[in-house]
């Protein structure tokens, strides 16, 4: 019946599209829910370890994660001021 109406010039049914989009989206969002802010935790712990040895500006630490199909990469970018490096070299 539904198909017949559509054949007779009705618009295509959009509900199946809505359903599929929701199923894909929610499967993804539910996966993220269990692990609250993994990057935030990583960032603060990395910051704590590095800060034990080097004086850092917390704003200059970025942690990024790229999820690939087979491999994911974790990218940690820490900016260390040159003046600090020199003072460390002088100390050792």
């Amino acid at each position, binding site marked *: 019946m539904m198909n017949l109406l559509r054949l007779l010039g009705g618009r295509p049914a*959009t509900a199946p599209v809505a359903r599929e989009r929701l199923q894909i989206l929610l499967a993804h969002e539910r996966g993220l829910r269990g692990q609250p802010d993994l990057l935030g935790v990583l960032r603060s712990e990395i910051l704590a370890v590095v800060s034990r040895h080097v004086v850092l500006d917390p704003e200059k630490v970025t942690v990024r994660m790229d999820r690939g199909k087979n491999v994911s990469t974790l990218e940690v970018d820490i900016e260390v001021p040159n003046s600090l490096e020199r003072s460390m070299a002088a100390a050792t």
Partner: protein
Amino acid sequence: MAKVLVVTSGKGGVGKTTSTAALGAALAQMGEKVVVIDFDVGLRNLDLVMGAERRVVFDLINVVQGIAKLSQALIRDKRLENLWLLPASQTRDKDALTDDGVRSIIADLRTKFDWILCDSPAGIERGATLAMRYADEAVIVTNPEVSSVRDSDRIIGMLDSKTVKAESGERVEKHVLITRYDTARAARGEMLSIEDVLEILATPLLGIIPESQDVLRASNVGSPVTLNNANSAPARAYSDAARRLMGETVTMMVPVERKGLMDRLLGRRAA
């Protein structure tokens, strides 16, 4: 034993306040002693939908802050003697509502009422989390539409993790209430079907409220849908939902508008 039920959704405008008022009134009509609490601090509206806006003297925040006693803030419904309202405050201070304050008010109300219905604000901020915090049961109001279903899913996740019940290893009993449902559009494949929504949310159904002009008519005059016109399609749907909350087994169906003779003659369309 008193039951604390939160009416929530995440998304705004799906019918939380309408549903709180309608279910509260339906439960009261069944002889239960009911209080409905508006948790939408700063944007209260349950008083307006219940027709009690001119009788608000004290509110939830006044009680939390000790300015008023709970008995001074509770407003008794003029139509149903066992239905009461605890209005929200119009203060802009979002932090005025505290966890301790809500806990003590709910504990107090548990000794006086059979049902405590908490009308949650939209969103996932403080007001919404406090509205669900002490709940035993939850009604998740959902429109058959993608953004509403997505937000309901998020709220279900919060009910399973951020409530006192969840934290103590128990479960909040959850029910989905589908509102603004249009049977004809769903049959044409233009609207998510009941089965679609339930499969996606994996939560049992409490009721299906059809899209209807009676909902606006009721709020216009400040009367819960179930009291304004008890024979209307949404009123019957809400009454069935209330009976299910009471543990009755009621066959699930979508009530349809009963067209009168004049409607037929004038060719008026049912909403």
